[in-house]
């Protein structure tokens, strides 16, 4: 595969389709700059700022843009609200659609056949494999990203975080908790 990619790169550069700096820009951006920390900041703000929270669920794209996130893979962003009785979980059964602007590039499992095939049919079993055991009476809402909408799950704010700063709260927000395959860390997890 390495050789095949090198061939493609050589041909595209030699023929003048792309400039090397364009490639560097892409790699640098998605490897270093854009990642789940963006989404964590959105979630933490939604946990602390009721007006922002309301805006986020009404118009996710605009609310998230106000924090400086958006563009590629988040032109149509929808935030999903977890409640004590509803858990949201995101998948793209057809390919690998994922809200890059707030979560970065998706992990392998998100793009894998086991996740894509099973998330829509037996999400509770999949969640158990992620170590998430939801009570049977919690409804699971699975969102299959078949269009250019991108979903961000806003998990429940953990107990014991009263008065925490946004910054500190953001440390609790894991990538998986924003895809819906995990829960946020608890205050005790941070110490560890």
């Amino acid at each position, binding site marked *: 595969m390495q050789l095949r990619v090198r061939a493609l790169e050589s041909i595209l550069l030699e023929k003048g389709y792309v400039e090397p700096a364009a490639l560097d820009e892409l790699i640098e951006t998605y490897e270093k700059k854009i990642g789940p920390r963006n989404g964590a900041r959105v979630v933490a703000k939604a946990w602390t700022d009721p007006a922002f929270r309301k805006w986020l669920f009404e118009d996710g794209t605009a609310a998230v843009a106000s924090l400086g996130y958006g563009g590629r893979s*988040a032109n149509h962003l929808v935030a999903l609200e977890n409640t004590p009785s509803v858990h949201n979980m995101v998948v793209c059964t057809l390919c690998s659609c994922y809200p890059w602007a707030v979560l970065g590039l998706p992990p392998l499992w998100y793009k894998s056949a086991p996740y894509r095939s099973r998330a829509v049919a*037996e999400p509770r079993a999949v969640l158990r494999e992620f170590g998430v055991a939801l009570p049977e009476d919690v409804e699971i809402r699975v969102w299959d990203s078949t269009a250019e909408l991108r979903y961000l799950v806003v998990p429940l704010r953990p107990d014991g975080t009263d008065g925490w700063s946004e910054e500190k709260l953001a440390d609790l927000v894991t990538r998986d908790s924003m895809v819906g395959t995990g829960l946020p860390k608890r205050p005790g997890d941070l110490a560890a």
Partner: protein
Amino acid sequence: MNGAADMGGMHGFGPVTIEPNEPVFHADWEKKAFALNMAIGVANIWNLDEFRFARESLPPPQYLNMSYYGLWVATLENMMLDHGMTTPDELKRGHAIEPIKKAEQPVNAAQVANMIRCGSPYDRPAGAPAKFKPGDKVRARNMHPKTHTRLPRYVRGHTGEVVRVVGCHVFPDSNASKRVEEPHWLYTVRFEGRELWGPDSDPKVRVAIEAWEPYLEPA
């Protein structure tokens, strides 16, 4: 198309494998595979839906045995061949072969940065009012086009409820096969798990998809 990519509801792939502290890329070639595809996307020689269709058109035995970025590489090769941007010979030798037909203008870093910052919205002005509204019962059509579609097999023929009128969006079926945007109203449609997977399945599961108006009929 009913290709290997449309895998919702399939069995037999095993458990989900979770890699702790997974890096963004697992090898240098993955970075390049990613960056080349993204950069060439900016040149707009093909659109995203054409790229997706080319990827899902890889024969299932191949599709299911390639790594994620491996699929991107195979698809990019196919697209470049289809568009006369390279030849099997060049791919084999790993270099452009004289006489070289140059691209009009190379994609540069500023264009790429702009694409990342701005993305590409898919909503378009509507030519007609939306046919459905939230609360409407709709049935996903039983359709099996060989061309690109974003209506997964597992919902076809099943009845759900419109929960959101998203807007009027570029229609991927047309955009992939005809390079025509042909925007249609897009809806979020929610299905009861039991409607999709039968009465023995989890009663507390609901699955939502986005569906363009041509995918739906009143139920």
